[in-house]
């Protein structure tokens, strides 16, 4: 266990380094810089601004400086939002993303498992077919189609829910973004859960449990659920990555004040530090979550050895 954690930590550092380097190189080979406005800037002002952000130094020095700051947890100042650091931008935006993404992941997990299990138990009935067709639809419809359609139906036509915007702590404002974000992962989890439940239900220990005359719900919840969850847990890592990046789209469509919006405008305006900071943050989140998913898997199935 301890060696496992240590090993993962040791892989995480070069991974983050690669992500940061990749982002740095990609941004810097781009034509255009953060201070190329419509109006030409007076050379002296330009030079002093560039000196302030160390943009006048050779690239390798800027790179080393960035890595040094990163090691201290400092993501640098934003170029676009004057007098604001990237850390502050992230601290503002992240709570929104955690609320939306966390709820979406939870919803996808709970509902997806329930639907998948139900479809497996009622295999080849209309219930199974309906559930799996909806799941296929969820996989096929991109988030940016689901979200506007939800807005059109529930906010504009029926007027049940607000079409966007963000009010802290209001579940009505969260409902539509969460559903839109959760739907594709809900669908994938339901499909995975159905397949794994079918496999588990065909196993000898379930037959033995049936032979002992245990009621169906006991068999399902006590004997089948745990092994059937394994592939779903393995999927949670990629699903989390998808939710994190999918929230960029959700934020644009619903006008939420999360970090994704800063990322998009940052990429368009060559706001180097914002783009790199958010990318590194996403990478770190994904690494942590993959680790959690692996630990969870080992806890569910003692046969899984952590290496």
């Amino acid at each position, binding site marked *: 266990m301890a060696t496992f954690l240590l090993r993962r930590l040791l892989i995480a550092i070069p991974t983050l380094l690669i992500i940061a380097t990749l982002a740095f190189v990609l941004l810097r080979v*781009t034509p255009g810089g953060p201070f190329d406005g419509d109006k030409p800037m007076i050379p002296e002002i330009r030079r002093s601004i560039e000196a302030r952000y160390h943009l006048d130094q050779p690239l390798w020095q800027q790179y080393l400086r960035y890595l040094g700051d990163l090691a201290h947890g400092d993501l640098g100042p934003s170029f676009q939002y004057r007098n604001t650091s990237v850390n502050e931008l992230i601290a503002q935006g992240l709570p929104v993303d955690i609320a939306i993404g966390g709820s979406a992941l939870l919803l996808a997990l709970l509902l997806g498992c329930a639907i998948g299990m139900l479809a497996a138990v009622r295999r080849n009935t209309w219930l199974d077919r309906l559930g799996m067709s909806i799941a296929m639809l969820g996989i096929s419809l991109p988030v940016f189609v689901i979200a506007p359609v939800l807005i059109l139906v529930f906010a504009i036509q029926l007027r049940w829910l607000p079409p966007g915007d963000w009010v802290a702590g209001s579940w009505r404002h969260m409902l539509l973004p969460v559903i839109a974000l959760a739907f594709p992962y809900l669908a994938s989890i339901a499909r995975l859960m159905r397949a794994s439940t079918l496999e588990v239900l065909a196993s000898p220990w379930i037959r033995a449990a049936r032979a002992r005359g245990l009621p169906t719900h006991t068999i399902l919840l006590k004997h089948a659920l745990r092994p059937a969850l394994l592939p779903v847990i393995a999927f949670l890592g990629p699903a989390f*990555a998808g939710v994190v990046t999918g929230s*960029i789209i959700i934020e644009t469509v619903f006008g939420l004040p999360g970090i994704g919006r800063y990322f998009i405008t940052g990429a368009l305006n060559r706001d180097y530090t914002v*783009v790199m900071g958010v990318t590194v943050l*996403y990478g770190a989140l994904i690494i942590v979550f993959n680790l959690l998913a692996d630990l969870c898997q080992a806890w569910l199935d003692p046969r899984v050895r952590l290496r």
Partner: protein
Amino acid sequence: MKGEGWMRLRRHRAAMLSLWMLGLVVLAALLVPLFSPYHYAVPDWDAIFGEPRWQGGHVFGTDNLGRDMLVRVMWGCRISLLVGVLASLVSVLIGVMWGATAGYVGGRLDSTMMRLVDILYSVPFIPLVIVLSVLFGRNFLLVFVAIGAVSWLDIARIVRSQTLSLKQREFIEAAHALGVRTPTMIFRHLVPNLLGIVVVCATLTIPAVILFEALLSFLGLGVHPPLASLGSLVAEGVVNLQSHPYMLISPAVLLALIIYCCNYLGDGLRDALDPRDRGA
């Protein structure tokens, strides 16, 4: 792959229906712009925001510049399908070579190559492609080479595990005894035997890539106007959602249809070619 697999696919009703639908969409995408009197880029100021109707020829209506939506949607299908197929080809090529080499050679090379795949898995991949397409926005080819170059990871993993089991088989041992060299071994003896799983992977990669390109176009980072992809058409539809919902419906339905069909086809192919979980 041949014969028996095809027979099993033929019995998979949803997959066959999807195959026909896809064929139909491809045919329409190729033919409609050729025979339509309208052009995807030429505005018609007398026909702005025309509702869809049979008379007058604008079956899907017209957009904010009076351009025929049917022609634009079909052009969108062309672009999306082209991107999907080409980028999937790139990712399948890289994935197969990477996975087969790592699995066959094994040892230290294998662990290094797969460690790199593990690392790349943690790279937040949508943000990076967004950055990439901001960089190379003017060069459309680079965008989908980039998509293809990052989406090969799953394929590499699957191919590697398949190679590991193929490696134990007698024909590989026989070839080895005959003195076949490693590159020949991989390309002549391993890869052809991986074809089934590769076909399945490719069909499931295509919809993922199409979604990806649509996403980029939705964010305004994909194709450049007046050319349209399904994603950029959906984005235009979203802008005009309140007043003219039909502008969202036709591209969204076609996008969903293409992806739905690709997914079902991939499922059917997997059932047909992978004997393991047949009947499940």
